[in-house]
């Protein structure tokens, strides 16, 4: 019945030397950690590498986890810093990581293969496509807020900024997402006509 244990109970067992408890912790959080990594890397191979790296780093530093916040918040802050470092390492040009055009270009190259099946695309496909076109910061805030069960304060802790800044960034990210979604849908309609 180990799957029903809380994160803290699994951490205690891991620190006592039970590695299978950590495997349970990994299983519990891997989907979301992988999704966050995908928001940065935009491809599965790199995202998996980053996500693995995060869990290894978390294991090494588990004893330093003070339990003042949720384990997920602590883990996501590791994901954020690891993914940012990985992204900086991989960048060969000098454009800012907040440069939206860079991400539009990356997202478009990966999504161009199924133009012929446009009529089969669901609304969720367009949403994922629009998220992929956002900057990592925008995509991360939206993902943490909607799928990570994180409050504005917890997101602020993960990103190392003020909660008010998170609120403003979330508003802007949602606005940009809406614009991109509308633009993509308009483009598809034009293509069909």
């Amino acid at each position, binding site marked *: 019945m180990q799957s029903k244990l809380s994160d803290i109970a699994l951490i205690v067992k891991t620190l006592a030397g039970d*590695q299978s408890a*950590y*495997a349970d912790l*990994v*299983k519990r959080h*891997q*989907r*979301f950690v*992988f*999704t966050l990594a*995908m928001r940065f890397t935009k491809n*599965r191979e790199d*995202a*998996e590498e980053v*996500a*693995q790296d995060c*869990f*290894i780093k978390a*294991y*090494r530093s588990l004893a330093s986890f003070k339990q003042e916040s949720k384990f997920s918040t602590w883990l996501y802050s590791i994901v954020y810093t690891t993914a940012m470092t990985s992204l900086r390492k991989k960048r060969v040009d000098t454009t800012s990581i907040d440069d939206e055009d860079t991400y539009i270009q990356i997202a478009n190259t990966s999504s161009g293969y199924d133009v012929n099946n446009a009529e089969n695309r669901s*609304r*969720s496909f367009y*949403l*994922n496509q629009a*998220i992929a076109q956002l900057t990592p910061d925008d995509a991360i805030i*939206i*993902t943490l807020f*909607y*799928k990570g069960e994180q409050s504005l304060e917890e997101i602020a802790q993960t990103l190392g900024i003020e909660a008010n800044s998170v*609120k403003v960034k979330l*508003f802007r990210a*949602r*606005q940009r*997402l*809406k614009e991109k*979604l509308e633009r993509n849908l308009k483009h598809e309609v034009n293509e069909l006509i």
Partner: protein
Amino acid sequence: MSIEEKLWDYIDGACSVEEHEAIDLLLVQDEAFRQKYLELLALNREIAAMEIEEPSMAFTYKVMENIRADYAKKPLKVAIDSRIIKVIGGFFVLTIAALLLFILVNINWSASTTVALPAFKMPEMKSLLSGEVLKGFLFFDVVLVLFLFDAFLRKKGIAKHA
């Protein structure tokens, strides 16, 4: 604050009671405002219903394998708790200090400079170096050397096969 900002606060449940009531009223009275609200609400629902990504099937296994490999690579120096080393070191330092203090306390400083050594008779070694005891000792040594040599060859063989 823009209309959109107010509406997002309303959707997130982050506005005050007064703001909430004001928006409720606007939603009833202003059709354009209501349309905007419905548009944002639909987007909000869509994002909330978005599926998250799934890593490969072997993800957990790979993480745990990396952790095991990482742990195995750790040198013995890191694995040993430094507190144990300090306790052992402290024990020896204290023992030596106590012994030194005991000797210093027991020295008769007023005694004459000539040291009278106690009468000591060297043990008879000839009887030990000959006979059954020596043969037994040598036999044990030979067996021990053969045993260690065998262990060394086995280890070498395993390393070669690996």
